[in-house]
């Protein structure tokens, strides 16, 4: 446990020791702000506050997924590129502790990133009528969706030593998970519902967006994260044999 936190702390600090962390936060806030003005608020002033909030969570989910891929790209790929992975591998630390520590740092960074966007729903809260519950549910959903995307990104980062390649591979995997809903639409019955339920967004995120937390959605995101992280640990272990 100690080793996990130690690795996580170093990694999280690493986001702020380099420009990467600031660039990601700045980019996300700019995009979020622009989308909030143009998209969530809409042209007229006749939109209900809950609708504005729901739209905010809608576009934030996309931004979060993209950001997660960039947040996770360096986790293991950069270690391998710089040779520092040998330090971790030769230390009395277990492989799952390395992966988990790295992942927790990324998750912590994502939480900071999401926290920085809180001012937008706060404005809605001040100017309109929305419930705290809705805000909480939406952010919880964003964190879960981001956690799943980060885990997939960690896996992408584990299988290559190039960060750019990691981004591309992770993006492909995330998109593949997203389009499962479409696969579900073009397949026949028992299969179609399997694919629809596998999809990263279409069935599982909209409830959060509307302010509803379903246990099955929470479980879905946790399972996706678990599987991706498990695979990452396996990749790390396999490399010792290679």
């Amino acid at each position, binding site marked *: 446990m*100690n*080793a996990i936190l*130690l*690795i996580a702390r*170093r990694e999280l600090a*690493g986001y702020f*020791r*380099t420009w990467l962390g600031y660039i990601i936060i700045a980019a996300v806030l700019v995009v979020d702000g622009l989308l909030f003005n143009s998209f969530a608020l809409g042209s007229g002033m006749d939109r209900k506050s809950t609708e504005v909030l729901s739209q905010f969570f809608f576009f934030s989910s996309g931004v979060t997924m993209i950001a997660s891929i960039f947040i996770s790209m360096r986790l293991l790929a950069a270690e391998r590129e*710089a*040779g*520092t*992975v*040998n*330090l*971790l*591998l*030769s*230390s*009395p*630390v*277990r492989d799952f502790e390395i992966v988990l520590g790295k992942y927790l740092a990324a998750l912590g960074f994502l939480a900071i990133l999401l926290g920085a966007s809180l001012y937008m729903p706060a404005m809605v809260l001040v100017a309109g009528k929305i419930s705290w519950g809705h805000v909480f549910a939406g952010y919880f959903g964003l964190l879960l969706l981001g956690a799943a995307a980060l885990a997939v990104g960690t896996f992408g980062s584990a299988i290559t030593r190039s960060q750019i390649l990691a981004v591309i591979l992770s993006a492909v995997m995330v998109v593949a998970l997203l389009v499962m809903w479409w696969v579900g639409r073009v397949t026949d019955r028992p299969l179609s519902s399997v694919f629809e339920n596998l999809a990263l967004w279409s069935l599982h995120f909209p409830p959060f967006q509307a302010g509803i937390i379903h246990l099955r959605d929470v479980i879905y995101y946790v399972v996706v994260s678990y599987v991706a992280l498990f695979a990452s640990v396996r990749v790390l272990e396999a490399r*010792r*044999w*290679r």
Partner: protein
Amino acid sequence: MIEVEGLTKYYGEHAAIRDLSFTINKGEVIGFLGLNGAGKSTTLRVLGAVLLPTAGRVKIDGLDLGTEPHEVRKRIGFLPDVPPLYNEMSVGDYLGFVAQLRGVPAEEVEGRVREAEAKTTLTEMHGEIIGTLSHGYRQRVGVAQALVHRPQLLILDEPTSGLDPAQIKEMRKLIRDLRGEHTVLLSSHILPEVSQTCDRLLIIDEGKLVASGTEAELSRGSGAAVDVEIGGAIDKAKTALAGVEGVRGVEVLGATQLRVQASPELRPALVRALVGANVDVVRIDRAASQLESIFMQLTQTRSA
């Protein structure tokens, strides 16, 4: 301290090391010598518990690397061929992180960092960002991270690579100073370096151990040679030298220079033979870099 038995490592179809066996005693400084691609780094990575062997057994301090890697890792400090440095961290922060990672209790970390910095003369660099350091300093930080948790065994993969002569001298002194406190295993493809710092040499070629022993032991083997400089009549000299008992070969190096493959103890006999053949002897001496020729002989028999 280290017992290696039948160690084999395949990368796909290619065997990087084959059936390697050796033992290293506590407190020894061992030089692991081989040309590039001979399997040095692979062996050290296995001993450093980074890679798992395809076959064979490694015991470090009586603990089996295969079954108790975690315990083994607590006892070793490993410097890979590329120092594993986080460029964005300061030297002190980095060493502190490594110390904690290797299980140094939190309250002792600061002291251990200072100790490692003092040993590697990095004290003044404590607050510097690693990314801004010169190559020599980076290499020293690499050594510092390997010894910050006071491991019993230090594994250093090419600790002097890329250093300038002055830095190489410093690094040699540093390694010599580590003797006694740690068992050290270091690799190199440069001979004089290991012959000056190490108690014993292991020579590896194409993944196999071809020789081991102290420098003197190795010289006593087949590789010893004598350099002869004469006044002229090189052909006559060559025949005369070749006729001496114990001479394994004569090589013409220049118009007046010869190298005789023979033990240095044969020098008086060689002189007698030359004088008997009416050849003037200007100089006779043991071959300058004996170990070098042994090394080349041991590692290049396949190309001959």
